[in-house]
């Protein structure tokens, strides 16, 4: 017995030492390799730098990228996630397309449009575009698609039906207050003219039209609810068509020669693998099995970010996107019903230190809710309306906390629960912030890890004290962030209720004077953060990705959605 025990101990020791040694060796080898591969890489890039102009296309124009999860559906009416968006964008085109540089809509299937003086009626003139089977794309195809979305009898019903509530009588039709679809604000005037009437002026409506819920659908889908589960019944109007789909394994789209702008499409195929491990994705990329890795469709493990930044400086890109990471306070319950206590906590953390040491992705410290990249009246909203709503100040935080506690009749803050959904990153951030609060304010924080659906369920029913949240823009307007916090709003998990705030948002929703609208937004955001501190802003997100130097033309829009259609591969 004794002998075998000591033998086991020996083996364990050998293993541990072996692992440590292997780790060191691996690192060294790694660095060596990086240096070795870097040198020719750099040479290569300077070579192409001198030989500008004649970019030689690679013979095989197959782009290989990864998806961290499989799109649940390719039916534009049923889609509701970013992975479906990534793939659908390659297969469909709406009336407009999102220009990735300006964040504004540009002509897509609609060649041009007229907008009535009151901003309510849009008349779209469609170009001569074709479906992948050669049929012309007509105004009726849009009406068909939108009707399916808004029809309460569609089975299963479209979860994103409310994305079309901007149309006149759309909500009424869904809730069966209006039963005649011709009353809804969309009409095919003739084959090439589509007239859309809105409920109220919506400055960002053209941008919305590039979104998948607004895509047209081909007439062959009628009477076949399962059309989008089979590649053979998917007739699309975009740059690519679906040619392969093995559940859980791989998706492939192939160039659609019938696409109206087929001349600008250089890729012949896009191969999507489906791997939900950041470590595997990064290794595949380094091994040359992927041409691009990272956000938004993939993931690079955060602890690897500083390493790849150093190892692959020419391939690493970090781009700010319109999304904010923040903590909700449950304003409906003590102690966070007290604004001074909320302010104290918000001011007592060091956001830059958090980014430099924990998140490592070059994020921007956030002091407001609306992120940079969201359009305002002149350029970006955030350029005109600064997010200087508060400063990080431990001393002031301490005195605010003391005052707040006094108001609540407390001598010390009882231990606080900070909940987050299971994720390595959320966990690290929560632990770091809890630590900052403990050191700066002397409060005890329990971090509570919850499985995703449990967490969302608790947060939405205000069963929490402090909870993490992240919000990505649905469309390019401050409204997508600010209308969350109206009283009783579906996503107002803080339980915030302020009639003045509601009025500002309501005014902005009906106002067609853009300057006045922006003033309302600025006033609302100031109320939300500076005065009432309903949430604790932490950082504005970045998309971090690696792109091989031979891959060009892949773009990200303001919200971080990726467009592969105009990509191309150089000889390598």
């Amino acid at each position, binding site marked *: 017995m004794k002998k075998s025990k000591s033998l*086991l101990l020996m*083996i364990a020791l050998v*293993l541990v030492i072996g692992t440590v040694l292997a780790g060191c060796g*691996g690192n060294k*080898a790694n660095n060596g390799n990086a240096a070795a591969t870097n040198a020719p890489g750099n040479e290569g890039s300077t070579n192409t730098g001198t030989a500008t102009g004649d970019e030689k296309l690679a013979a095989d124009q197959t782009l290989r990228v*990864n998806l961290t*999860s*499989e799109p*649940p*559906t390719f*039916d534009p009416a*049923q889609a*509701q996630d970013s992975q479906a968006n990534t793939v659908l964008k390659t297969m469909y085109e709406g009336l407009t397309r999102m220009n990735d540089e300006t964040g504004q809509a540009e002509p897509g299937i609609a060649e041009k449009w007229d907008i009535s003086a009151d901003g309510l009626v849009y008349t779209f003139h469609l170009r001569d575009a074709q479906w992948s089977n050669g049929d012309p794309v007509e105004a009726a195809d849009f009406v068909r698609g939108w009707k399916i979305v808004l029809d*309460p009898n569609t*089975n*299963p*019903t*479209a*979860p*994103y*039906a*409310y994305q079309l509530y901007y149309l006149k009588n759309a909500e009424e039709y*869904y*809730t069966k207050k209006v039963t005649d679809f011709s009353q809804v604000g969309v009409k095919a005037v003739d084959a090439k003219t589509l007239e859309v009437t809105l409920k109220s002026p919506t400055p960002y409506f053209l941008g919305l039209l590039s979104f998948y819920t607004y895509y047209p659908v081909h007439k062959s889908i009628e009477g076949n*609810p*399962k059309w*989008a*589960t089979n590649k053979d019944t998917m007739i699309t109007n975009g740059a690519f068509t679906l040619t392969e789909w*093995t*559940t*859980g*394994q*791989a998706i492939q789209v192939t160039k659609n020669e019938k696409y109206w702008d087929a001349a600008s499409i250089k890729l012949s195929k896009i191969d999507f*693998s*489906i*791997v*939900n*491990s950041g*470590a*595997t*994705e990064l*290794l*595949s990329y*380094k*091994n040359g*099995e992927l041409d691009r890795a990272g956000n938004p469709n993939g993931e690079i493990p955060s602890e690897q970010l500083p390493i790849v930044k150093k190892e692959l400086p020419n391939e690493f890109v970090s781009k700010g996107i319109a999304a904010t990471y923040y903590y909700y306070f449950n304003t409906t319950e003590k102690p966070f019903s007290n604004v001074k206590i909320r302010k104290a906590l918000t001011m007592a953390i060091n956001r830059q230190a958090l980014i430099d040491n924990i998140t490592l992705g070059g994020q921007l410290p956030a002091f407001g809710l609306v992120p940079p990249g969201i359009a305002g009246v002149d350029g970006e909203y955030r350029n005109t309306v600064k997010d200087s709503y508060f400063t990080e100040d431990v001393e002031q935080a301490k005195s605010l906390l003391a005052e707040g506690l006094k108001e609540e009749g407390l001598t010390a803050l009882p231990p606080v629960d900070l909940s987050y959904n299971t994720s390595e990153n959320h966990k690290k951030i929560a632990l770091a912030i809890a630590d900052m609060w403990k050191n700066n304010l002397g409060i005890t924080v329990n971090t509570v890890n919850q*499985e*995703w*659906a*449990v967490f*969302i*369920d*608790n947060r*939405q029913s205000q069963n929490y004290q402090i909870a993490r*949240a*992240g919000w990505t823009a*649905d469309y390019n307007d401050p409204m997508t962030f600010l209308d969350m916090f109206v009283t009783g709003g*579906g*996503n107002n998990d803080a339980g915030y209720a302020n009639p003045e705030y509601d009025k500002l948002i309501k005014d902005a929703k009906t106002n067609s004077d853009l300057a006045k609208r922006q003033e309302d937004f600025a006033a609302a955001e100031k109320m939300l953060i500076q005065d009432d501190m309903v949430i604790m802003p932490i950082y504005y997100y970045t998309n971090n990705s690696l792109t091989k130097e031979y891959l060009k033309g892949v773009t990200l829009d303001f919200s971080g959605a990726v467009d592969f259609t105009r990509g191309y591969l150089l000889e390598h």
Partner: protein
Amino acid sequence: MGMVRYVANKFFYMLVSLFVLVSATFFLMKAIPGDPFTSEKKVPPEIKARLYEQYGLDKPLYHQYFKYLGEIAQGDLGVSMKRLNQDVTHLIGQTFSASLKLGVVAIIVSVIVGVILGMLAALYHRKFIDSAAMVLAVLGIAVPSFVVASLLQYVFAYKFHMFPVSGFKGPMYYFLPVAALSAQPIAFIARLTRSSMLEVLHADYIKTAKAKGLSWFAILSRHVLRNGILPIVTYMGPMTANIVTGSVVIEQIFGIGGIGKQFVEAIGVRDYTVIMGITIFYGILLMVARFITDIAYVLIDPRIKLTGGKEG
């Protein structure tokens, strides 16, 4: 006669177990917070109400339960609630085919390599080969499969470029996941084979066989192996079910869209019909594997009687 009664008996117990499994899973699943339509961006109440209505989630729990029982009694596993309009049977079929292909290769490799290692160790008892094989076996059992998988991936795919890092598109894609999947069973089988063979080698009938002047090869194949392999047959049942149902960790690391990954994802998004479908599928698979093991046992060792034996 005995065989028929035995099989009928087993079959009845399998049905009962399946019923208990289905019921328990159904109620446990409904007990966890959240539902298929829980999302960070909340859908408006009228749309949520419509979705509930269409999927029958607005009905009382017992109603949903009996409706589901009725459906599965007719062999209908329903349609996924998250992967819209996709049949659960189709999802299971597609993802299971990947797990099955991988699993079958892994089982064959495990048995062949495991038995050979164990035999060598037994024949060269207390010699170098024995120690080496047993150190390997201890390592195989002790090191978690995700460590083995990551290590194999790093060394053989990334460092030496011998195999692809991830995916499942052809023969080359099998090597690393199969090696990672079979590491533990190989170790287990090797140890089992070794100990049972050592026992057999010292048995009287082997001495008799030797005394009769039988050749070593004949003794080994006809007597030693046949008797020594029994414990492995016992282990084969659960192992087969285990490997074939897909290892979530291995599938994730190597980016293989198997049924294990599918199951975990379905639980994460509360895709009720898929959770139930895969649970039932797993249940049947496990029971059938056990059943076949029992039958195989009887065929190999006539000493084991069919009747009167309890499930072991």
